[in-house]
């Protein structure tokens, strides 16, 4: 039988997500275990991503697994013209599980079809990055005690933001309310609004980063507004300082509010927010490790 892989957040249903989050809680309480002793995990990073790679590799190391792989396509055989299929076939001879990041969209789905061992998609171009979604959801669950009926305000690049799109999909099982705050050019695409409508999810759209959208939120999810996304640079100049969070903007926010960000952050969260207890983006990044431990063990069928 084909092994189950994690390619797209939609591969996981509500129960799968709940199971992963429960395991991540166990790993957070005790991340140093022997569960992967005698196992080899391959981390194939055809495109460099230090943060994600270190998170996966630390997750494996803390479970006493061994790691093989590469951190850059320049050091892989793909520079010699080897097909992805052949690389995956070869590596799956050696490893029990493959973590892969690739610049081409759909590469992880294809890898999962040709691989006899599970594949974890650590990002395929601008398509999917499902462990980011799971770590976001774990952080929301951890800080709010539930995933049900929360109000999530998402700010920044809602048009191209892969993390945002997957988060909407992942949270769709849990009756969320969304506030989408974005400049006109980077508004949430129509297909995600249709997705919300189809799943009876309430949402509001804002072009200004108003106190209203902050003060009603349980989670404030910030993302980068990148200059290169704008066709009209005048428009970028107009909005570049609009979607920046300053500490005083959190004064009237709810007590349970937490500020999240998939990182790296540039200017969109001012440094003065960092010391506010509502700032949770660094803990969120740390949660990535526990969530990835949960996903790896789940795909290998290891009881925790």
């Amino acid at each position, binding site marked *: 039988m084909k092994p189950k892989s994690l390619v797209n957040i939609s591969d996981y249903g509500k129960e799968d997500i709940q199971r992963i989050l429960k395991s991540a809680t166990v790993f957070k309480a005790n991340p140093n275990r022997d569960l992967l002793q005698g196992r080899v995990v391959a981390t194939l990073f055809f495109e460099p991503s230090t943060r994600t790679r270190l998170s996966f590799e630390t997750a494996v190391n803390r479970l006493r697994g061994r790691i093989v792989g590469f951190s850059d396509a320049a050091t892989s055989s793909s520079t010699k013209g080897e097909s992805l299929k052949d690389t995956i076939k070869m590596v799956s001879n050696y490893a029990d599980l493959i973590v892969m990041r690739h610049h*081409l969209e*759909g590469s992880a789905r294809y890898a999962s079809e040709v691989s006899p061992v599970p594949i974890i998609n650590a990002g395929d171009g601008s398509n*999917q990055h499902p462990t980011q979604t799971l770590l976001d959801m774990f952080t929301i669950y951890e800080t709010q005690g539930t995933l049900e009926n929360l109000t999530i305000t998402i700010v920044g690049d809602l048009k191209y933001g892969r993390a945002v799109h997957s988060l909407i999909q992942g949270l769709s099982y849990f009756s969320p309310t969304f506030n989408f705050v974005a400049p006109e050019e980077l508004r949430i695409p129509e297909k995600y609004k249709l997705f919300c409508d189809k799943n009876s999810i309430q949402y509001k759209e804002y072009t200004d980063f108003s106190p209203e959208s902050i003060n009603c939120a349980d989670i404030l999810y910030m993302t980068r507004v990148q200059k290169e996304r704008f066709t009209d640079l005048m428009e970028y100049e107009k909005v570049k300082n609009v979607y920046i969070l300053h500490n005083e903007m959190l004064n009237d926010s709810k007590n349970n509010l937490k500020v999240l960000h998939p990182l790296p952050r540039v200017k969109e969260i001012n440094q003065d927010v960092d010391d506010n207890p509502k700032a949770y983006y660094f803990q969120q990044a740390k949660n990535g490790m526990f969530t990835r431990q949960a996903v790896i063990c789940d795909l290998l069928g290891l009881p925790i």
Partner: protein
Amino acid sequence: MNYETILSTKKIITRKKSPRGFKGSSRLMGKELQVAALENGTAIDHIPTKELFKVVTLLQLQRLENRITIGNNLKSRKMGAKGIIKVADKFFREDEINRIALVAPNVNLNIIRDYEVAEKKKITLPDEIIEIVKCNNPKCITNNEPMKTRFEVIDKEKVVLQCHYCELKIKKEEIVLK
């Protein structure tokens, strides 16, 4: 290859036997016949003129050695102008013929036996399209690896496909054949 393309409606072709059942492509226009009658095989009628050669590609007719008649810009009371394809002694499998629903979902498909319409068929778009459509995303893995493309048909009525790999949605007018 026996390959006959008739682009003029003025050509008169004598039939071996008078067609009774299949009128679509062999209708007598006064004394003119638009396209030769078929003894046995498949006649695909009412093809939109702009889609005719795409249908030829989708059915991979260039690979067949059967006698093939292709007519285009023929007069049609229903459509104004239409295309017709007749393939002698060929009865397509359902998955072969259903491919053409991508570009011409409303064609008339007639199975001819002994000059008679033995069966009229409707074509339906399959749930999945493998290999024949190209993904429009240059960063899709299917455009960078020696592999088959695969699309799920997510809206059969409007003809919307979604790449199984990069998840790009492609509308009917954006479809590019491989």
